[in-house]
Structures are given as structure tokens and as C-alpha cells.
């Protein structure tokens, strides 16, 4: 099912006038919002050339995806769903900030090669790079407000043009008086508080859809997205995550998390050491050898396990823009806006599932999956699907040896399982589970894009050993069972 962008855009539901009715119900909400937040009229105009196309594409993909969930419903239900979606899109069009959210969905979808061909990923990245929405005078004022002086005085140099777009702002090159080359990520003023309001409004419009049986799974996805955006608007939290993560890596790892310059960072501005390198898509465009690709993949896998086992931080934001392949060969891990911290309870679970999921034996997996996802004895279908998904996502880990991530059939099996899990809301039991499932899926999809061969198991074992976790009790049982 290879779709191109124009096909998707035409697949978008047509706009009709009937939409006016639900809009009326939302007016009080919109008015209450207007009382403390300006309606961003000017921005919409400006975005027409750049952002809107991107947002539309992302929305089209999302729609396409959503429609898939309604495949099995009858025509009436599907029509109802489409009407609500159309309304929501209309509203969305008046909410600048939610465009950021839609772009995020676009990025998530970029991990689905099934519906997101390479062309889409490329378009997304290009658009991303071309749209600097804050002009210099606004930026200057933000820096002045946040860092108590003008950029000209606070920095030795500061590029007026953004070199990258962030979902909620933009990133500029600058140099500190200490000589450090930095990347300064700046948020559009007030955006953090607007997102909350935008979501509330969007939800009002989606509310009529709650009667459909797929509502809960839609809501899960939106909740996940909302949580993500809330966390990502908090640059102080991101700075703390970056610092914690950075301390976990050493020169020999060839993995680097950028250093944070706290005196130049606030809740709205994040100043980091600037890494020079290319994103995965650019890296792949150079036709790197199998070995080069494997090396990058190994580092990604190592970084993931290191963060998880030593840092108790689950890195789930695997979109290609979040990794930089540095000119000196190191892997740069960016974007710690969205991290799932593993608290004691969660960590206990991670310890508990580790062995049963790494033997590759169904009888080991089933009891722990039932406990983890709170699956009742009568829910055989749910158990089956959870088990298949767990088997798939831990496959490279339990098999050991070099695992070939370029195997498309295997990846597609995962897509189908993942989509099915989302659609049926089978991962709902624990609050983080949908996020974790998405993270596992995205992790695989990055390795698939790299067409890498990696011995995941040996890296995981090394990382676990380094934490001092004594797993000697595993060996005898495992050997016993394999015999």
C-alpha cells in the first residue's frame, strides 16, 4: 500500500458547510480561551505556504490511519466518525499550536513504512527545516526576558536564522563567551499554556465520537500525545533529563548526550552543547556500508539499554531527527523532552519481566503478561495478541546472535500486531504501557531504516551486568528448559 502525498490529500474528507453546527457549541470554549490567549490569526496566514502543507499531510496520514480503525464498523458509524474528524480538522486549522501536535503525529507515522513512504519522511524534514516562525526581534525579546539581557550581550555570537525547527519553537546556532559552540532551543512565547487549552477545545469537538466503540483507543492516542507535549514544553525538565543521561556515557562508548549550559537555560530556553553531524536520513542517503550502519545501530541499541538499565529512563521518542551521526563518528542522542522515568514500582516490573520475556518460551511469557496487563482468564484473544506482540518485540533479544533488522516481512508482522494492539486497546492496563509499546515499535523501526544487523542480546547483557544486577539465577533454568 504505497500512497503518495497527493493521494493522501485527496483522501482527506471534503469540507462542507454542515460543519458550522458543531462549531457553535464550541464558541463559549473558544471565547473563554480568547480571554487569556490571543487567537493567532497572523500566524495562520504566514503558515499557509509552509506549515499548513506539512500539517495537512500529517493530518491526512492520521485520518488515513484513523479510518483504518473503523474498517470493520458499519457504514453509518464510519460516516459519523468521518464527520467528527472533519470537524476536528476544521477546528484544528484555527489552532496554530496544535499544528505542532499534528506534526508530532506525522513524525510518529513516519515510523510506519507501510503508510509513510520515504518521500513523506523527506518532505516532513525539509519543511521542518524551512520554516522559522519567530523573527529576530521576537527572539531577541524572548532571550532578553528569559536570560535578562540581549542575545548580543549574553552570547559571543548568535545566528539570526534558525538552523532547525523544534516542534514548539526553533533552534539557533550560537557561541558563548567561553568559546563553547551551542545550540539554543527557544519556545514560542506562551505556547506551553496554549497547548493545554487547544487540547481541551479539540476534545470538545471530538466528544460526539465517544459513543463509537473505537473512542477509547483514539483517546489513548490523544492522551499519549498530550502527555508528550506537556512534558516537551518543560525545558527545565528536559535539561534535568539531559544532565542525568549525559552522565551515563563515557568517551569509549562513542555516544554523547549534549551538555546543558544551565546559566543559559530556563523553562523556555534550552542552551546545549552543539553537536555537528547528520540525521539518519542524510546518513542513509550517503549509501553507508553494512558495517557503518551496524555501528550506528549498535550505538543506538546500547544507548537505549544504558538509559533503561543504568538510568532507569525509558527513551521512547525514536524519530530519526533525534539522533545525530557526528562527524567524528560518535552518536549524538538529542531530545530528552519525553522520557518515561521508571519509578520503583515500574522498575520492579522491569526486573520481573526480564527473564520470562528473554527465554523465548511461551509458557514463560504468558503468566507475566497476564499479570502485567491484568488479563483475565476468559480474555484469550487479548492474551494471544499481547503474547504475539511481546514475542515480536523481544525477538532480537531472546534469539541472540546477529539479528537482521532489514527483514521486511518480520517488521511488517510487527506493524500489524502493533496496529491491532492500538486498535483493540489491548495494552491499556497500565498507564505507561501504550507509550512503552510505541517506544518498542519505534525502536525497531529505526533499526529497520538502518537495515542493520545487531547482536541485541549481547549488548543488553553487557549493560545489565554493568549495573551489578545479579542474574546468575537465570542460567540453570534456561539451560534446563532449552534441553
Amino acid at each position: 500500500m504505497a500512497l503518495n502525498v497527493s493521494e493522501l490529500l485527496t483522501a482527506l474528507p471534503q469540507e462542507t458547510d454542515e460543519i458550522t453546527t458543531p462549531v457553535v457549541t464550541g464558541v463559549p470554549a473558544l471565547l473563554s480561551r480568547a480571554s487569556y490567549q490571543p487567537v493567532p490569526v497572523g500566524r495562520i496566514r504566514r503558515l499557509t505556504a509552509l506549515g499548513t502543507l506539512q500539517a495537512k499531510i500529517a493530518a491526512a496520514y492520521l485520518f488515513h490511519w484513523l479510518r483504518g480503525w473503523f474498517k470493520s464498523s458499519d457504514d453509518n458509524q464510519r460516516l459519523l466518525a468521518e464527520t467528527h474528524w472533519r470537524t476536528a480538522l476544521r477546528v484544528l486549522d484555527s489552532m496554530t499550536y496544535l499544528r505542532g501536535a499534528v506534526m508530532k503525529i506525522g513524525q510518529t507515522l513516519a515510523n510506519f513504512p507501510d503508510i509513510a513512504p520515504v518521500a513523506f519522511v523527506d518532505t516532513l524534514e525539509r519543511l521542518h527545516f524551512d520554516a522559522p516562525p519567530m523573527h529576530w526581534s521576537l527572539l531577541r525579546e524572548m532571550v532578553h526576558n528569559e536570560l535578562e539581557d540581549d542575545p548580543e550581550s549574553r552570547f559571543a555570537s548568535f545566528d539570526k536564522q534558525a538552523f532547525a525547527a523544534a516542534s514548539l519553537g526553533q533552534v539557533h546556532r550560537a557561541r558563548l563567551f567561553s568559546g563553547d559552540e551551542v545550540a539554543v532551543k527557544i519556545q514560542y512565547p506562551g505556547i506551553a499554556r496554549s497547548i493545554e487549552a487547544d487540547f481541551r477545545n479539540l476534545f470538545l469537538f471530538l466528544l460526539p465520537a465517544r459513543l463509537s466503540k473505537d473512542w477509547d483507543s483514539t483517546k489513548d492516542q490523544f492522551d499519549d500525545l498530550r502527555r508528550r507535549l506537556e512534558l516537551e514544553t518543560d525545558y527545565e525538565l528536559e535539561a534535568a533529563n539531559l544532565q542525568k543521561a549525559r552522565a551515563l556515557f563515557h568517551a569509549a562508548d562513542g555516544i554523547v548526550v549534549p551538555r546543558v549550559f544551565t546559566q543559559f537555560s530556563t523553562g523556555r530556553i534550552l542552551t546545549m552543547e552543539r553537536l555537528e553531524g547528520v540525521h539518519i536520513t542524510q546518513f542513509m542517503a550517503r549509501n553507508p556500508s553494512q558495517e557503518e550502519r551496524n555501528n550506528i545501530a549498535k550505538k543506538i541499541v546500547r544507548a537505549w539499554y544504558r538509559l533503561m538499565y543504568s538510568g532507569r529512563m525509558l527513551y521512547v521518542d525514536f524519530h530519526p531527527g533525534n539522533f545525530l551521526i557526528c562527524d567524528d563518528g560518535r552518536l549524538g542522542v538529542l531530545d530528552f523532552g519525553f522520557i518515561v522515568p521508571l519509578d520503583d514500582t515500574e522498575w520492579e516490573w522491569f526486573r520481573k519481566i526480564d527473564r520470562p520475556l528473554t527465554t523465548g518460551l511461551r509458557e514463560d511469557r504468558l503468566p507475566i503478561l497476564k499479570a502485567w496487563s491484568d488479563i483475565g482468564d476468559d480474555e484469550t484473544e487479548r492474551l494471544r495478541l499481547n503474547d504475539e506482540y511481546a514475542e515480536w518485540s523481544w525477538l532480537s533479544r531472546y534469539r541472540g546472535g546477529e539479528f537482521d533488522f532489514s527483514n521486511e516481512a518480520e517488521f511488517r508482522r510487527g506493524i500489524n500486531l502493533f496496529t491491532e494492539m492500538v486498535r483493540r486497546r489491548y495494552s491499556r492496563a497500565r498507564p505507561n504501557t501504550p507509550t512503552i509499546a510505541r517506544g518498542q515499535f519505534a525502536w525497531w523501526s529505526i533499526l529497520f531504516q538502518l537495515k542493520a544487523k545487531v547482536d541485541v542480546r549481547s549488548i543488553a547483557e553487557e549493560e545489565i551486568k554493568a549495573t551489578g544486577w545479579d542474574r546468575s539465577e537465570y542460567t540453570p533454568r534456561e539451560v534446563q528448559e532449552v534441553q
Partner: protein
Amino acid sequence: MRITAEEKNATRRRILDAAVELFRTHGFDATTTRDIARAAEIATGTLFNYFDTKEAIIGQLASESFGKARLAFAKQELQAGLDEELFALVVAELRQLKLLRKFITPLLETVLCPLASARRPGMDHSLRVEHLELVVGIAKRHGITEISPVSIQMYWSIYIGVLAFWAEDQSPKQEDTLALLDQSLRMFAAWLLNSAGESQ
């Protein structure tokens, strides 16, 4: 006894400084001209030789800040778009007016009010005129040689609207004002450039 110009200026300064301090600690409404006179160590009657009303004191303070802002703006090098240049002008003013933020509303209701000229023809319009002259100059630099009275009135309404929003802005570091200013100036600039294009 004759009072020299120098002494007069010094008294004026004392009144202004005392007023800012009192406005800041007690608020504009709770401060009386008598309080100001006492703090400036002059008789209440003497104060009226300098300023007719409390609003006039605010007006004078604001006028000084606007003056400083214009100097700062003139020093900036700008090769930006129309909306950005207008933005730079207004934020330069906001920076200088920061201390007066909470007391600016009376000015907006009087000398700066979009309706002021119709209502009170005798009023001092210099603040408005000076600002608008800069705006016309900026527009010229961006190829808009003639700016209609309607456009001017529209600009002024936006400008005063932003100042009024700012005076009450509860958001952290008044960041919402920046967003409002950015967005409304983009809208105004796009509209102005569009209508200039149409009339040619």
C-alpha cells in the same frame, strides 16, 4: 523670590521620582496629589504649578520613556520585514515603559485613547503623533509611500489594544503580550502590504 530654571527642573524631577515610588508602592488610584507633594517636600499648591493632574504626571513619565525607547530603536540596525520592524519599535517602548506598566491604563484612557481627538480637541497629542510618524517612516522604508487615515486608525487601535493587554497581562514575564503583538502586527503588515498592492 525668583526661581531659576534649574531649580524648577530639579523640583519637577523630584515630583516625578516621588510619584513613581508612590504609584509603585500604593498603586495609582490610592495615591493622591497631596501624597506626592509631601513626598517631594513641596506644598500641594506648588505641585499644581507643574502638573494639573496625576494623569499628567504619568503622561510626563511615559513621554520620557517613549523618548528613550525611540533612541534605542534608532540605534538598532534592521533589515527585516515590515512586521518585524514595527515589532521592534513597540517592544523597545515596552522595555522602557516596564516600570509604568501597572499605571499606564489612565494614559490609554486619555491622551492615547483612539477616541481622544474627537472628544477632547485641546489635548496634547504629541505622544501619539511621534509614534505614528515613526510608523509612517517604517512603512515608507517597506515601499508603502502613502498610508491612509483608515490604516493609521487601524494601526493605532491594534497598538493601544496591545498596550491595554500588556497592562493586565498575568502571564509569566508577560509572554502572552509578545505573542499577541507578534500575531497582530503580522496581520496588520500583511493587510497593509496587500492593500498597497491592490491600489497600485
